[in-house]
């Protein structure tokens, strides 16, 4: 039974078809990767799922609920949250506040609760704060709790974005190039973190990545996009050995079967 079901999704910009009739399924509690050449439409695909763009055609449903036509905030409410290819934290908020903001969608209290400081309001604030603490611990950023988000090192900002996304208690989280700008060491830590998101929190993960070491060792299934269309799909070793994928995306390195085991310098 798949959690996310995307059927025949299409989006064009002017004359350009960025996403072309893509059908995509994500089983519950899985880690799925979307890869493909630059400009293949991966980010656009995420934007379509999260309601940032409206598809020209196609349907999206999450656990049986139709998401088509929902605004981004409603999509979050329905259980999908995400990170961005270019980090988008709230720079003047602390790490903790960033996460508390993310928690907001699950809090019940409203305007009058805030003005009157009702019991519900106090309960909610406590809940948000607790969530922030738990999530910071989870991604290993506790020491930055009261630091402004902009002041965090790049890699930690990426993790904070993940923590913020998780604070919405999603069923599915979409990560757009989480390892970009990380060195191989840091990428290893990230890999462990993503596994824990699935194993400890039970959240399904879909990620876009160009780092094949991460993709090949982490994902259960890989979807390859090229010029907006699905080029290939399957388990990592299947995709890795698909000649079409090699040609369009992986290049010689992959053809030699080297990905997943980085080639040393000057070898």
């Amino acid at each position, binding site marked *: 039974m798949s959690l996310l079901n995307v059927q025949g999704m299409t989006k064009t*910009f002017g004359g350009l078809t960025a996403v072309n009739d893509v059908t995509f399924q994500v089983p519950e509690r899985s880690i799925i990767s979307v*890869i*493909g*050449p*630059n*400009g*293949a439409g991966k*980010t*656009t695909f995420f934007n379509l799922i999260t309601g940032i763009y409206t598809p020209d055609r196609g349907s999206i449903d999450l656990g049986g609920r139709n998401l088509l036509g929902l605004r981004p905030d409603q999509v979050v409410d329905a259980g999908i949250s995400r990170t961005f*290819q*270019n980090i988008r934290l709230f720079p003047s908020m602390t790490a903790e506040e960033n996460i508390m903001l993310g928690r907001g969608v699950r809090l019940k209290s409203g305007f009058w609760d805030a003005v009157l400081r009702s019991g519900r309001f106090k309960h909610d604030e406590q809940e948000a704060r607790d969530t922030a603490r738990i999530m910071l611990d989870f991604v290993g950023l506790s020491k930055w709790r009261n630091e402004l988000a902009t*002041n965090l*090192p*790049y*890699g*930690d900002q990426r993790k904070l974005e993940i923590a913020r996304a998780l604070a919405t208690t999603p069923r599915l989280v979409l990560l757009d*190039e989480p390892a*970009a*700008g*990380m*060195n*191989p*060491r*840091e*990428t*290893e830590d990230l890999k462990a973190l993503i596994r824990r998101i699935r194993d400890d929190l039970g959240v399904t993960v879909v990620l876009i990545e*160009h780092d*094949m*070491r991460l993709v090949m060792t982490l994902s259960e299934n890989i979807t390859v996009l090229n010029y907006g269309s699905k080029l290939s799909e399957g388990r990592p070793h299947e995709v890795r050995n698909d000649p079409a994928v090699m040609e*369009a*995306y*992986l*290049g*010689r*390195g*992959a053809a030699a079967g080297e*990905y997943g085991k*980085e*080639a*040393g*310098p*000057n070898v």
Partner: protein
Amino acid sequence: MSDPLTAPRPAATGGAPLLELRDLHTYYGQIHALKGLNMTVNPGEIVALIGGNGAGKTTTLRTVSGMMKPKTGSVTYQGQNVSGVPAYTIMQRGMSHVPEGRRIFPQLTVRENLEVGAYTVRDRKVIAERIEEGFSLFPRLRERENQLGGTMSGGEQQMLAIARALMVAPTLLLLDEPSMGLSPLFVEAIFDIVERLNRERGTTILLVEQNASMALGIAHRAYVLQTGEIRLSGAAADIAADESVRKAYLGDE
């Protein structure tokens, strides 16, 4: 079509280093990002600068290109002290910088981005030629000539940023993580281009990369930066062979 990278080599600057950083201290407010950095880049070299997140690689490049002013220390470029000189004057002297985060002009089309990149070039013919060169390096840019820079995909923007920096046929090219966000196929292509620029045109290159193994693969020399200080320097091959480097930056267990 003729290979864009076989243009004539610019004259070498002689024996003196092209770029020399002396005891550089750079701050972000209270944050001491560079703590006494020393470094040289000789004409015709590819020098790799590697280090973990927040080590100060980007800050080093920013200080070199005049985007930031060092608190103390000096940056000597082509024999002249340029620390504190605004970026635009330094850039007018044959330096080019591909900044972190690409910094495309989102409101300008792809072609206009390239034209702005050639701001210091006066000759319209030369500009047209170089745009052609850029297009043949990255055919995707030609396809999207009139698309707004801001709507290009992450990787496409990276291509544009590199092409834009090449518009002035730089003597010294600063590259900040050029492979970030590029597909594996393109990562190889980029390193290939960098190598050929250096080999065939003699462009000197200061390269910052997370993909340390590949960077060390094409570099002549390398520096390892850690919390604002140089920890290690030497021939790229030696650095690549260094046990601690392999562990810390190359991901070897």
